[in-house]
């Protein structure tokens, strides 16, 4: 390259800037910080990953508790079984997720990004591994400047080895949500995994390794759709990570014992820790930028500096646009959290949750579809009886077998002919039952007559309980 590379903000980067996946990118070496928010992030990392890695190993009713069984087209979540027909619940779940995201974003910005997003979580874990093996920021930068040596090779190999192992485990766990994990584990141990399963383990593992090890902040900056539109959910009362220029400026270095106020300096010692801690390489002192994922690492970093200097914490802190302008007190900021917009979002969210929970609770675990067999009507037009054939698809969505009885009504003298009743429908399965319905021509008023099937499903293991009943309409047609 013969011309110096320009970065996107117009500054000329040194020649060491590398062309990486997306643009001219200066490698970011985030500095580890300790503090309240780092502790919160680790809590979320541990919680989410405990659930993610652990859930597929739990059992329920002698089967995997959480299993999105693609092969048998059923989703199991503890006691619940979802069929493809239940897609409405999936839609509702997506709506609830989206709404929660709106709500959290309106209250405190990119909480999701900073604390719970898998991209953040895995990056955090991968960076922790990197730190353990290569050391903190200065050590890593030094290592990368060194020519390749046996030591450097060893460290890099160890880091990538651990990364790849974790990525593969993640890929395995992911596939374990879609195909029974105990079986998959046995297959892995005997090296007998199916080719597609192997492929998806590697695919997901590779994505984890690439995103958390290499892409990191670039995923947030260039690939994440939420990052692009989150700002429309902000309002002037949204809590965001802010540097307090009134307190910090004019910035400048000084000794610990210096009376900096007399020298006309603000609280910012211009140490650059906030920039070094930032996983996206931002300087939060320039104001809120869309690249900021709200991780609060700069808050923790700056607070550490403030403590060392003996200044009060919170030069960088969660605050709102209005609070910065109007110098609100902490209580006033908290009070503004409960503003109409947030209350309306919360109310709608709860409404959706309650309504869907009630419908989920009330749903009848028996579904019946009636299809009239058009090709199979008797054609004798002077026959005193009219016959129609129907196919009833009976879906028993619960994990108990059912004994089913079918009856028909709606027209005088109507009769039903089917296989011997009751009909056993095994647990979580469906059966098609063909029935022939006959009615005297004299009692049929129209060409098409409304009739209804009643399907009663008893639980043979609990003889005393009332059967489930489903009534389905159908038409009896004179040929």
């Amino acid at each position, binding site marked *: 390259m*013969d011309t110096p590379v320009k970065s996107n903000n117009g500054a000329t980067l040194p020649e060491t800037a590398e062309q990486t*996946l*997306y*643009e001219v990118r200066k490698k970011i070496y985030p500095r580890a910080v300790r503090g309240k928010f780092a502790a919160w992030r680790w809590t979320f990392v541990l919680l989410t990953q405990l659930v993610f890695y652990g859930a597929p190993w739990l059992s329920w009713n002698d089967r995997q508790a959480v299993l999105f069984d*693609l*092969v048998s*087209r059923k989703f199991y979540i503890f006691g619940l079984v979802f069929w*493809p027909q239940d*897609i409405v619940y*999936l839609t509702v779940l997506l709506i609830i997720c989206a709404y929660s995201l709106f709500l959290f974003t309106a209250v405190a910005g990119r909480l999701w990004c900073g604390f719970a997003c898998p991209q953040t979580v895995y990056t955090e874990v991968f960076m922790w591994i990197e730190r353990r093996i290569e050391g903190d920021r200065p050590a890593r930068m030094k290592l990368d400047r060194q020519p390749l040596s046996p030591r450097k090779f060893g460290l890099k190999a160890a880091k990538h080895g651990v990364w790849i192992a974790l990525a593969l485990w993640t890929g395995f766990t992911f596939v374990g949500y879609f*195909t029974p994990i105990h079986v998959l584990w046995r297959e892995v141990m005997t090296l007998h995994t*199916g080719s*597609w*399963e192997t*492929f*998806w383990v590697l695919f997901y593992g590779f994505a984890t390794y690439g995103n958390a090890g290499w892409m990191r902040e670039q995923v947030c900056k*260039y*690939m994440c*759709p939420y990052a692009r539109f989150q700002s429309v959910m902000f309002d002037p009362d949204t809590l965001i990570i802010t540097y307090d220029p009134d307190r910090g400026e004019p910035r400048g270095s000084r000794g610990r014992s210096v009376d900096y106020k007399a020298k006309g300096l603000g609280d910012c010692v211009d140490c650059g820790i906030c920039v070094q801690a930032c996983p996206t390489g931002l300087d939060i002192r320039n104001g809120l930028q869309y690249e900021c994922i709200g991780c609060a690492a700069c808050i923790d970093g700056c607070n550490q500096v403030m403590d060392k200097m003996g200044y009060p914490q919170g030069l960088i802190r969660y605050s709102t646009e209005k609070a910065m302008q109007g110098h609100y007190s902490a209580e006033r900021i908290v009070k503004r959290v409960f503003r109409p917009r947030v209350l309306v979002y919360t109310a709608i969210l709860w409404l959706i949750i309650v309504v869907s929970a009630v419908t989920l609770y009330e749903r009848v675990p028996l579904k019946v579809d009636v299809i009239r067999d058009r090709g199979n009507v008797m054609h004798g037009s002077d026959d005193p009886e009219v016959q129609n054939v129907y196919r009833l698809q009976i879906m028993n969505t619960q994990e108990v077998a059912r004994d089913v009885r079918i009856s028909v009504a709606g027209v005088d003298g109507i009769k039903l002919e089917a296989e011997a009743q009751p009909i056993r429908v095994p647990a979580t399965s469906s059966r098609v039952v063909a029935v022939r319905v006959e009615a005297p021509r004299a009692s049929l008023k129209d060409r098409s007559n409304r009739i209804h099937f009643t399907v009663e499903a008893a639980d043979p293991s609990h003889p005393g309980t009332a059967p489930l009943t489903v009534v389905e309409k159908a038409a009896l047609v004179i040929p």
Partner: protein
Amino acid sequence: MRLQKLIWVLWPSFIAAGAAEALFFTVFDPEELPFFGTIVGASRIATYSVGFFLFWAFAAFSSSLTCFFQRGSDEINRCPLPPTARPLGCPKRSDENASCR
């Protein structure tokens, strides 16, 4: 730039393919899908996987057309050679954004 365009094509189409896959296979069971009159014999996992890559390929095709049509006129007219690779004596050797006109 090449790599960036590749990601512009592959990544949005990946998201679209994921959504299409979920919707399509919720509604249609691969074991009941007619394929030129017969039923696809492959296992469900195989059909799901192949289906996903088909969706991805179609979406990527659309994304790449978008990328292709999005190029501005100066991008199309620009000299394809970097300045230093242009023949000696080319009047636009020092002009990075030289066009062929």
